[in-house]
């Protein structure tokens, strides 16, 4: 029987949640026995080959590309999990949500203390994805089945969640593993 497939991605996040996943220590070997990784930075696979059982999303949506990737995950994944505070509530990137978008662009490309931009223009290369009006938590863009909060979530939380889902048990994290920091 083929192993269940897992896909992961980091949208507007810091990869800290992926680090936390690697932080399950030697259980990573068990994980490799349990599942195959499809699209994921862990195996550097860029595209989906087909349907996937579990998708882990780190990061919220700050630009149009994040939205497309997230929608792609939703299309391919039976179960989609928001991992970490950025995915569940926007996180640190969402601190810009109180600042007008034009000011964000100006800070990044024109006025920031480390900016060197003699053209004085905000670049408009079609390869640069457009920023969204604000950073959105994933479940405000697509339907998300489960949330594992934390910044990052404890490795045990990720491990327990994966094991529960892979063994068909309800995903109910104990008190000590639901943390927002």
């Amino acid at each position, binding site marked *: 029987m083929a192993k269940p497939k897992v896909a992961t991605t980091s949208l507007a996040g810091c990869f800290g949640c992926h680090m936390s996943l690697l932080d399950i220590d030697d259980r990573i070997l068990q994980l490799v026995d349990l599942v195959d990784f499809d699209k994921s930075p862990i195996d550097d696979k860029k595209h989906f080959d087909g349907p996937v059982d579990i998708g882990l999303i780190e990061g919220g949506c700050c630009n149009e590309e994040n939205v497309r990737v997230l929608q792609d995950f939703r299309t391919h994944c039976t179960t989609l999990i928001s991992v970490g505070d950025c995915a*569940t509530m926007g996180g*640190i990137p969402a601190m810009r949500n109180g600042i007008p978008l034009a000011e964000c662009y100006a800070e990044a490309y024109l006025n920031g203390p480390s900016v060197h931009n003699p053209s004085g223009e905000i670049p408009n290369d079609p390869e640069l994805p457009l920023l969204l009006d604000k950073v959105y938590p994933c479940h405000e863009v697509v339907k998300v089945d489960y949330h594992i909060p934390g910044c990052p979530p404890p490795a045990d939380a990720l491990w327990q969640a994966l094991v529960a889902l892979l063994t068909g048990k309800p995903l109910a994290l104990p008190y000590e593993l*639901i*943390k927002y*920091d």
Partner: protein
Amino acid sequence: MADGMTITIDDRTISAQPGQTVLEAAQAAGIYIPRLCHREGLTPGGACRVCVVLVNGRPQSACTLPVTPGMVVENDSPRMHEHRKRIIEMLFVEGNHFCMFCEKSGNCELQALAYRFGIAAPRYPYQFPRRSVDASHPDIFIDHNRCVLCARCIRASRDLDGKNVFQFVGRGVHKRVGVNARARLVDTDADVSDAAVEACPVGAILKKRVGYAVPVGMRLYDHAPIGADIEAEAKA
């Protein structure tokens, strides 16, 4: 217990004293009624609505309602659990609660309630309001992003400090805690030793230079849920 009476909370009959609120009587009997705007020593506010219980079938805030003999209180039922969860989630999406860098994290009553209720993420869309920070005072700062409008600072300043440093201004979604000066806290007689500073359940009013003093793992709500101390007394 000459003037005592009994009331029923979730099929448990407990004794209560005249003058007690439902919340106080429950607490004395080791029953935790979740609450946020309530704080011992302050006039009850009835604002957050987390402590709403059904008294003889009618919704009432347990923190404001005096006990009367024979009252039947529904507290920890599935439906009240669900209502409370929704209220806590409303508070999370209403403000900007970035727990990951908040000094109060681990000791925050709002966060602790969400932990106790097992909330992984609020079901409601985040409002991301634009709110301000007042760091003018040398020893205290106010971060309105985290304010839950519980009025604990207002009541503490008025009733315990005798200062009236705080009062609500605006109404509805524009409501916020104002200070007794044209704009800045530094222009009031607020002091870092004020009861009002201690009273804040979240990270909206904080003392400067003492953040993150307690390491993760040793904070108030790292291991045991809020209210567990009250419930432990019942078992003891």
